[in-house]
């Protein structure tokens, strides 16, 4: 985890100018800039899946529709931003446990069975993080129901040709 990145204030009640999260000029090298190696990603996979599920689903649906990667760049950008935000939130609460867990995975063959102790510590520390990130707008259940009805009642057509 890179310690040079500034932290982000997720509180929206802040008066004055809102501080934006730090994103590099090109997010294509997010893993390199933020030190997100394979072990770190394996360690934080459940937190990512819980917090960014809406954005991830949007991206996967878009990819299922189009083969051309140029059509899903917008969703991909939001995906990377969500991931960066979650890692910044994890860094606030339990950076040490994450690094310990990631090094254990790195040394022990990326097997979850060999690092149960460190996994337990990390999970107990990261329990309050299991909710959707604040920057994602989730529609209300009524709106979701209406969207679903609209999708069901629309005619079934072939996907558009790229």
């Amino acid at each position, binding site marked *: 985890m890179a310690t040079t990145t500034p932290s982000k204030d997720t509180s929206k009640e802040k008066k004055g100018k809102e501080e934006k999260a730090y994103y590099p000029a090109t*997010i294509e090298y997010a893993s390199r800039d933020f030190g997100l190696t394979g072990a770190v990603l394996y360690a934080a996979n459940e937190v990512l899946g819980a917090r960014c599920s809406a954005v991830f689903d949007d*991206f*996967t649906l878009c990819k299922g529709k189009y083969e051309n*990667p140029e059509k899903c760049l917008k*969703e991909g950008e939001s995906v990377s931003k969500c991931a960066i935000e979650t890692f910044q939130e994890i860094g606030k609460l339990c950076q040490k446990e994450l690094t310990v867990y990631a090094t254990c995975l790195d040394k022990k063959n990326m*097997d979850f069975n060999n690092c149960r102790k460190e996994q337990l510590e990390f999970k107990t520390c990261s329990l309050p993080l299991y909710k959707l990130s604040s920057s994602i707008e989730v529609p209300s259940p009524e709106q979701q129901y209406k969207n679903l009805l609209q999708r069901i009642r629309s005619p079934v057509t072939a996907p558009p040709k790229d």
Partner: protein
Amino acid sequence: SLGSKSFRSSGINAEYGEPNSNSTHNNTMNNSRYLQDGPPEGGYQKVNYKKMISPNKGPSGRVLLGICVGMSVVGYFEVMRMRAKRVKDAQEKRIARMNLVPYLQAESDRRYVIELKRQKEYEAKVMAGVKDFDPNEKYYESRWVPNMQPLLSYLY
């Protein structure tokens, strides 16, 4: 007797035996004493040619069968338990990879698009004055197929 007691431990006891008393060899063989290799005093010890396994000792056949059956039963349950554990571990890893796919795919897409754009521009520069050259020519109608493969130089 000449030193027969000293040879008793080795098992060889040379004795001086008396000549044959039968009348068959009276005229042909010498009627003198001769050296003979014979058994020790008291005879040889008894050789145990019978089996050492005594059927009246140890557990009976039923008990042995029960032990074998018990071991196999315990083994079956252990196998089932370890199979369930293996399946659970594989599921855990599968879920971890599913959670990470969108993040990694988005990064890969960005790199791919940038590389493809760079190569398309180079191609346009090279084929500037060429007649009947369409850079956005469709190679396939029903699906998206890129005009060229990216070099993937960022991997090396």
